[in-house]
């Protein structure tokens, strides 16, 4: 079981309220990702759930029981830290066994569980090494192993992949997703990287300055962002925003078009601009187009074969049903 409910929780450090009153429901078995820019309170929220920090007000329920006052050791949750937080003086085996040892489980049962976890995580050959002798990816797996063995009600991950290089990050992302498929345990995963959020989550929680901006599945957020912030944060490259006469035409304060929803042509189209930088990735080409009356260059994603150069005049046309409209409060106009 792993159902977690946050009810009107707040958190202040001194006079600064980092989390204003916040409600959230996390269902058993869900993979929930908290995403938001750095400093928006994701870690704080996770640590409140973990019990590493006290809530300033409100309460936290885990599996129907009020856990607000329960110390972290007793909440039945497991956490994987950004720095992995492995015990440097213990072997991998001892690291993974530590929660079992703390729970007073007998030695034979400990060994069996450690062996099983090591097998799942491909760590069997490394059990007698110290964390210092492992690569970043292996350390990461030890941290996950330590979390798995105690069969927690939920896993908490705080930016677990941010210390890995790009290739390894993709691998570990898949491994964590697979782990979730096989364990079917609730996972709460914090990241500032919207790609991780989109690829892993059942449910994404977008945070800004401690507030929840939107909760939904990755595609819900992609297709119907509730406001301009979510629209700009989810999707890569970022959504283009236009104001002024461009928006007036659609009865909105701002309109947004994703780079993949713009078609580019040499001869005709709705808007005209001049190519600034073009990036050829092979599969795709990203054009950054300067338009009169728009501050930032407009990003266009087109096929890999297209051959525009710096200074070329191009015409852009948005797909008509893919235009997002926002009012002067930055809220979505349905």
């Amino acid at each position, binding site marked *: 079981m792993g159902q977690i409910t946050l009810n009107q929780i707040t958190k202040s450090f001194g006079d600064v309220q980092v989390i204003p009153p916040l409600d959230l429901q996390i269902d058993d078995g869900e993979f929930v990702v908290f995403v938001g820019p750095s400093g928006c309170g994701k870690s704080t929220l996770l640590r409140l759930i973990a019990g590493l920090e006290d809530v300033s007000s409100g309460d936290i329920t885990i599996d129907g029981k009020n856990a607000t006052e329960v110390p972290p050791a007793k909440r039945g949750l497991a956490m994987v830290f950004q720095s992995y937080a492995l015990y*440097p003086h213990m072997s991998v085996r001892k690291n993974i066994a530590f929660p079992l040892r703390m729970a007073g489980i007998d030695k034979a049962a400990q060994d069996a569980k450690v062996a099983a976890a090591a097998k799942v995580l491909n760590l069997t050959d490394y059990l007698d090494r110290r964390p210092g002798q492992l690569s970043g990816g292996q350390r990461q797996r030890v941290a996950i192993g330590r979390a798995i063995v*105690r069969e927690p009600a939920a896993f908490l991950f705080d930016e677990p992949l941010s210390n890995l290089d790009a290739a390894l990050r993709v691998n570990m992302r898949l491994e964590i997703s697979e782990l979730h498929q096989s364990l079917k345990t609730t996972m709460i995963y914090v990241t500032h990287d919207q790609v991780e959020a989109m690829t892993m989550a059942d449910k994404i929680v977008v945070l800004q300055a401690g507030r929840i901006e939107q909760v939904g599945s990755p595609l819900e957020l992609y297709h119907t962002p509730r406001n301009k912030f979510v629209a700009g944060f989810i999707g890569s490259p970022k959504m283009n925003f236009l104001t002024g006469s461009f928006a007036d035409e659609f009865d909105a304060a701002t309109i947004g078009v994703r780079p993949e929803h713009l078609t580019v042509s040499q001869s005709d189209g709705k808007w005209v601009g001049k190519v600034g930088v073009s990036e050829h990735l092979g599969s795709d080409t990203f054009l950054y187009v300067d338009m009169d009356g728009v501050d930032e260059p407009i990003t266009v994603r087109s096929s890999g074969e297209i051959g525009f150069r710096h200074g070329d005049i191009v015409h852009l046309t948005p797909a008509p049903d893919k235009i997002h409209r926002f009012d002067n409060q930055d809220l979505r106009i349905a």
Partner: protein
Amino acid sequence: MARAVSTRRKALVTICAWAVGIAIFFPILWTVLTSFKTEAEAIASPPSFLFFDWTLENYSTVQERSDYFRHFSNSVIISFGSTLLGLLIAIPAAWSMAFVPGKRTKDVLMWMLSTKMLPPVGVLIPIYLLFRDTGLLDTRIGLVMVLTLINLPIIVWMLFTYFREIPGEILEAARMDGAELWSEIVYVLTPMAVPGIASTLLLNIILSWNEAFWTLNLTAVDAAPLTAFIASYSSPEGLFYAKLSAASTMAIAPILIIGWFSQKQLVRGLTFGAVK
């Protein structure tokens, strides 16, 4: 990268460095050598450096006359006892300061250090009288108590500087793994801080071993450690250089050896972590 240095320059530096090193070490060397001479040779003129009849006689004389081993065991008990007791009190305190810092943590640390500034002589009389009235005068337990208290600020400070470098996340991980406070300190913090705790231990053993205000003023016979054992040689009585040297060698040898082995760890400890 250090650049290649000309051999001539290196030779020159080597000569200077060794000359200075030997000059600084000479009083100790001379003492050790003299301890193997007879009293007559000890004051012979010109002094003989290596070519004399080596004898161990002084050592047995000193043991007979002043009971070295009793003083030695007092020194061991007092310095180890006060250091271990100090660690026992200081580890939890340093844990609090390093991992649950509050607004006043820094003030508390400064205050603790400032108690080291309290001149011992300012409280000599009350301690002397309290000890006299409670029967603690000239007891090892009394000295252990006093030395624990005077070294406690240093122990807390040193441990604090070592603990501060341990990432708090690791202790939080232990908490998430179900460790109670006690297990967190015993199984995670302490083993991680072993190098720091070891150098704290060593430095405080050295400081307590050589402490010579309280050990001289609060002991007479029973609890007297080596500092007092040596002080009994302060009034000359006939020929006594060789015996004085033997006694001195015996008093400093244990700590000199410990000190040499641990000199690397000592620097950080000695400076409260301010120089690494």
